[in-house]
């Protein structure tokens, strides 16, 4: 079975400057493979090359060098376009058309007609949570609801592979939660989802794998669990009834002691602090254990580290 998305040395240079045009490398030799059924998070700070990569995959721009295939066919293949969905960043459609008209128009471009169009439009409007805006002209919709129309048009053909550029952009917390559920539903249906984002908590909860872009290069890629699970950063131990004397004694064995409400204290321990032994000692001294939590590296920590490493050194 071929990969859902495959790129090999994909590179894009843009000419910048007015008088002296010089190339600026937006995407640098991107080699990537996304398997069918995966939810792949394409992460990176602003200007990292995420949207440029998506545009290359949609053939909205042409590569300077390298190749890309989607569902085993070269990008831009009209047959492949029938099997994919795409949501652009900050989508804009047609101000004077209603949500229903825009979605019907797109459905017909896929070759659907008659009752099929009507039922597809109803279903996708329901899926994105705006069935009541069916007859509303797009110019009257809020940014968040326009984003939902954008999502709806990307789903109109039941795609096998869907590309979402910043799908949570402009959505309120309820909208974000709906989009998360939508992506999970797509995953359950076996749809491959490729989405770019800089909201890392979304990627952490949704993605089977992520790729991190910085300065146009793919600086890391793999399973979220492989990237962050095993690196323990320390322990957070919360206790009650800690006397001043014990606090003094602990100073050399903990990184910090922070007083909390209701006579509790949070002890920040190093990864090798052996908390079980410390808990036994504290109990012996009359303190009560409230909670103990391992502090692991988050995707955000990992992301910041990777992006910082890719930054050009300032001298």
């Amino acid at each position: 079975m071929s990969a859902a998305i495959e790129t090999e040395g994909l590179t894009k240079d843009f000419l910048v400057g007015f008088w002296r045009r010089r190339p600026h490398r937006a995407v640098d030799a991107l080699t990537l493979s996304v398997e069918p059924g995966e939810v792949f998070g394409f992460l990176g700070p602003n200007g990292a090359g995420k949207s440029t990569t998506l545009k290359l995959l949609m053939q909205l721009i042409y590569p300077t060098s390298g190749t890309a295939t989607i569902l085993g066919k070269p990008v831009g293949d009209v047959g492949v376009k029938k099997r994919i969905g795409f949501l652009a960043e900050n989508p804009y459609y047609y101000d004077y058309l209603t949500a229903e008209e825009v979605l019907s128009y797109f459905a017909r471009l896929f070759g659907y007609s008659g009752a099929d169009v009507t039922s597809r439009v109803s279903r996708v409007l329901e899926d994105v949570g705006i069935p009541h805006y069916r007859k509303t002209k797009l110019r009257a919709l809020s940014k968040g609801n326009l984003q939902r129309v954008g999502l709806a048009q990307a789903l109109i053909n039941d795609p096998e592979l869907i590309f979402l550029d910043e799908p949570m952009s402009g959505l309120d917390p309820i909208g974000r939660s709906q989009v998360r559920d939508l992506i999970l539903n797509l995953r359950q249906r076996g749809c491959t989802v490729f989405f770019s984002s800089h909201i890392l908590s979304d990627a952490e909860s949704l993605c089977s794998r992520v790729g991190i872009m910085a300065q146009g290069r793919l600086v890391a890629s793999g399973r979220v669990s492989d990237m962050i699970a095993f690196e323990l950063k320390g322990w957070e131990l919360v206790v009650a009834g800690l006397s001043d004397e014990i606090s003094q004694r602990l100073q050399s064995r903990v990184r910090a002691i922070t007083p909390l409400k209701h006579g509790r204290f949070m002890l920040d321990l190093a990864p090798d602090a052996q908390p079980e032994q410390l808990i036994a000692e504290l109990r012996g001294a009359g303190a009560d254990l409230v909670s103990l939590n391992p502090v692991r590296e988050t995707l955000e920590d990992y992301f910041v580290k990777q992006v910082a490493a890719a930054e050009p050194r300032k001298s």
Partner: protein
Amino acid sequence: MRTIWLIAGAVFKESVRDRVPYAMVVFAVLLIAASYLIGQLTAGQDMKTIKDIGLAALSIFGLFIAVFIGIGLVSKEVEKKSVFGLLSKPLSRTQFILGKYTGLVMTLAVNLGVMTIAYYGILFYMNLTASAGARSVWPSPAMDPRLLIAIGLIFAELMLVTALALFFSTFSSPLLSTLLTIGLWVAGHFNADLRNFENVVSSPVAIAIARGLYYVVPNLSPFDVKAEIVYGMPISMRTLAFTLLYAAVYITLLLSAAVAIFRRRDFK
């Protein structure tokens, strides 16, 4: 073909709800005001003047619609990035351009149709209210069906101008596209003068440039038969057919060039 029609239908729907109705209203108000004023001021010449003004207004408002909507639709689509969503659907960039053009021509046809009805309405009113004496000095009847030939040629000219606007908007900014299209429309009406430039200047360079421009700039003067129609003069059917053929060839060339440019374009 179905895809082209679908795109054309969306363009038509969007344009009709957008600015076109305003142009129609402005045209109708202008025409009514002009006919009333001129009816007061002229004696005997009122029908010729109204026909002239009506056809000129039809041509000018049609030009505005062709240029502003023609340029606005493609460049707005690119500027606001709605082209991203559309081009990710199963259609080619060629179908996109041809669909946009067909939609614009449909919009133009409806707009021109409504203006023609308003125009004939006023002529009908003038005919009804004029005395038998006044009617006897008119060079052609008020409701002259030959006016439709002039309007048909205006439509063909506007189709060409729309193709020109669409062509420029595939690679330049909306402002520059507007200036270039209107500039070429003006130059196109004086194109015949370029052919005889050697009668006015002696510089071989200037003559060569003028001759080059003559072949590149669209020749729009044959599309203007207002005077012949209004004054009841004959029109050669051969010239008419050749003019329409010229429009068809020029439009085909412009659309081919627009497609070639649009297919290579990066949408940042």
